[in-house]
């Protein structure tokens, strides 16, 4: 890590597991759950949040000394909203079908608590470079959970990954389906996202006892 000091690289690695925004900080759950029925949507969502949080953190951090603290929430919202409009327009131009699937959830990145949370907790008190790393780290932690949930839901729910049939063809009974495997259509329903995240939390906290709440 020639580029990053040890303290800086911790900013990226921490949110991935031990201080994960979704499972530990409980931030940004709204958008995480509704769009994870397909892996592709999860990946696009993660990239969008990565962009918004990385750039937004830098912008807020650069302005941190000139924002009056009374109206900082409105300033933050305007910065995020401007970035989200860019993301939304890019998606509409280059991935129209996908932007239809994500529908209002692109817009809801604005009120994604991760973003406001990191602005408040980090960017307002730290320099641009560290804020950038913090933004990237937290967005990556968010994306990690999103992609994990999307992976399991698409694999178990429709037997595909990114649209490719990885388990064989359910109609012609090839691959796993030949031995009687069936898709669990239940995984495609939105409530299962909550249950999958619940199970991820269970696994994570069993591995790291320090995280257990009483």
């Amino acid at each position, binding site marked *: 890590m020639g580029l990053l000091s040890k303290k800086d690289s911790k900013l990226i690695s921490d949110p991935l597991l031990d201080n994960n925004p979704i499972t530990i900080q*409980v931030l940004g759950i709204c958008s995480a759950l509704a769009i994870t029925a397909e892996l592709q949507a999860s990946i696009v969502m993660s990239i969008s949040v990565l962009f918004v949080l990385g750039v937004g953190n830098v912008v807020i951090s650069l302005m941190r000394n000139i924002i009056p603290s009374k109206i900082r*929430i409105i300033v933050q919202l305007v910065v995020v909203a401007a970035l989200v409009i860019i993301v939304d327009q890019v998606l509409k131009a280059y991935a129209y079908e996908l932007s239809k699937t994500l529908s*209002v959830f692109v817009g809801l990145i604005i009120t*994604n608590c991760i973003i406001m949370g990191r602005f408040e907790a980090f960017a307002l008190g730290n320099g641009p470079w560290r804020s950038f790393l913090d933004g990237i780290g937290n967005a990556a932690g968010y994306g990690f959970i999103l992609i994990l949930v999307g992976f399991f839901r698409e694999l178990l729910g429709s037997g595909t990954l990114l649209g490719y049939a990885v388990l064989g063809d359910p109609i012609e009974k090839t691959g796993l389906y030949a031995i009687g495997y069936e898709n669990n259509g239940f995984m495609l329903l939105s*409530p299962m996202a909550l249950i999958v995240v619940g199970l991820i939390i*269970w696994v994570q906290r069993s591995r790291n006892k320090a995280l257990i709440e009483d």
Partner: protein
Amino acid sequence: MEHIELFFKSIFIDNMVFATFLGMCSYLAVSKKVSTAVGLGAAVIFVLAITVPLNWMLDQYILQPGALKWLGAEYASYDLSFLSFIMFIATIATMVQLVEIIVEKFSPSLYNSLGIFLPLIAVNCAILGGSLFMQSREIATLGLATTYGVGSGIGWFLAILAIAAIREKIRYSSVPAPLRGLGITFIITGLMAIGFMSFGGMLTGGDEEEKSDTNELSVMPVDESNELTIQATALEDKLTQVNQ
């Protein structure tokens, strides 16, 4: 009838928390006690009931493609809909601020119970989500938009009240240690959401033909300049069907 239908639809079928997972952050964070949950829930109803109609007007008269027609014919080709995120969130943030000031001035007791939640609400996804869904579902009139706002607010209130009550009770159960707190709350919410899915057939009675009918009435397409003609032609179609 349309209003009642949309009202119940937004409370039960399209429940903010259980169907679209909006406002989950505050839903999980503030649901440890019933009394605080009631406070936040009431504040959400209140703010949704104000901001959804307001944003509806904004959408209808400023943002939609061709919405600026009332300014003059040369503005008819303008499409400002890409600005809707920033306009909606600005409206919400200012309204929340305004409501806070007004409530503090005129009803200190209400302010004491609602006040601390109001700043939280500006960044609650349920509020922005209400406005965005109002836009994407193309709700046709101001009255319907208000109904939708109040209905989804009540749906959110119901959800947070239920989970808070369950969480108060679940403290006495022996949940596996790593699942305690957040984990079990997620799973309970998932199970409640599955339960709420059974409301799906409430308005249609499982009858497919009626379903397409209700969709047509409650969410009328607004892309044509005059919704009334659409309604009229729908009625005419029905009449001809009856005549035949």
